[in-house]
């Protein structure tokens, strides 16, 4: 029983590590190819009111929604992503959201003609359990996250 359990665990870890290695290589290609428009991660990166395809964020932006990029502190795991996606998905102004652990950002696209004020975004991030470092809109939304000022 013990040997079977350990063998199964080892196999699962090895498979996951190998699969992620290949996935990571794919991601690097995508990031290099189209980095200015954001990372092209897999479908599970995108969560709106219902499970959405990977293009949901881009589609919502193309439909006239505003892209807002929120730099978030303390985002280290998928539970953080679930919390923020679920919290923002409750808002009628929000068309799609995506949390990117690599960028440490929450990307929000609003419905056409609607927006979310910075104060409201900060409040929602806080109710998800996290803290906002910066909110970027317009051209700044597509810029890379600035390094943190450790002296603050």
């Amino acid at each position: 029983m013990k040997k079977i359990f350990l063998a199964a665990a080892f196999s699962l870890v090895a498979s996951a590590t190998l699969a992620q290695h290949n996935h990571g290589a794919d991601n690097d290609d995508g990031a290099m190819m189209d980095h200015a428009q954001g990372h092209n991660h897999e479908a599970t990166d995108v969560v709106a009111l219902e499970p959405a395809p990977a293009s949901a964020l881009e589609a919502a932006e193309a439909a006239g929604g505003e892209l807002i990029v929120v730099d978030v502190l303390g985002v280290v795991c998928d539970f953080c992503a679930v919390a923020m996606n679920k919290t923002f998905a409750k808002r009628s102004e929000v068309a799609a959201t995506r949390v990117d652990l690599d960028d440490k950002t929450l990307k929000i696209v609003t419905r056409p003609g609607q927006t979310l004020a910075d104060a409201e975004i900060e409040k929602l991030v806080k109710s998800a359990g996290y803290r906002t470092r910066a909110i970027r809109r317009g051209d700044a939304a597509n810029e890379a996250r600035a390094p943190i000022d450790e002296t603050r």
Partner: protein
Amino acid sequence: MTRNSRVAVTTACAVVVLVGTGAVARPVSYAGGWTAIEQTDRQATMALVHYSPTPTYSIGLRIDWDRRDDILFVGPQATWLAKRWFGEDYQANVYLFGAAGAAKGVGDNDGEARAAVLGGVMADWETRRLFVSYRAHGFEAGDLDATFMQAARVGFAPYVANTGALHTWLMIEIDHRPDNPEPIGVTPLVRFFKGPALFEAGWSVTDDRPLVNFTYRF
């Protein structure tokens, strides 16, 4: 000093130490979030379903089954996020929790039902690559049972995965249960984490028993 006093003092000391050093765990969700947790280690099985009205506390129903002593505890639990540290690449938390309810003997234990309380602390510090945690709790059920346990864990992610991908961790947990014939337990485990689901499987090399934990965040 009575046994109950020792438990109280030890728990208080753990809280003081941990508040001074930082930590993180996930017994409190986002505002409006539900979470279901199952934990089975070498001695006990616990189930907890909780709801978080705010991101700083949760309330839920806890069921504990001490398989070694054949004692079942059922009661509501409140968990308070005492402190959270946010960093560019890390998160750390300290949680305090308490439960009050009823406990009774089951199986070979014919102990009658009586009021029982449980209290403790959980703390952890986590990056996307490293994980450290500590938890301790004391349980008091009059002449039926009174126990204390504490456990520390360190973990390492062999690769760093982005949102929605399968996250894998290799961990080792050391637990201390003064009342157990094997008071120090060592349990290597693997953690798989994807979206709202977290699954852990391990094996106590101390007394050849499995560890199976599952958490789902709604």
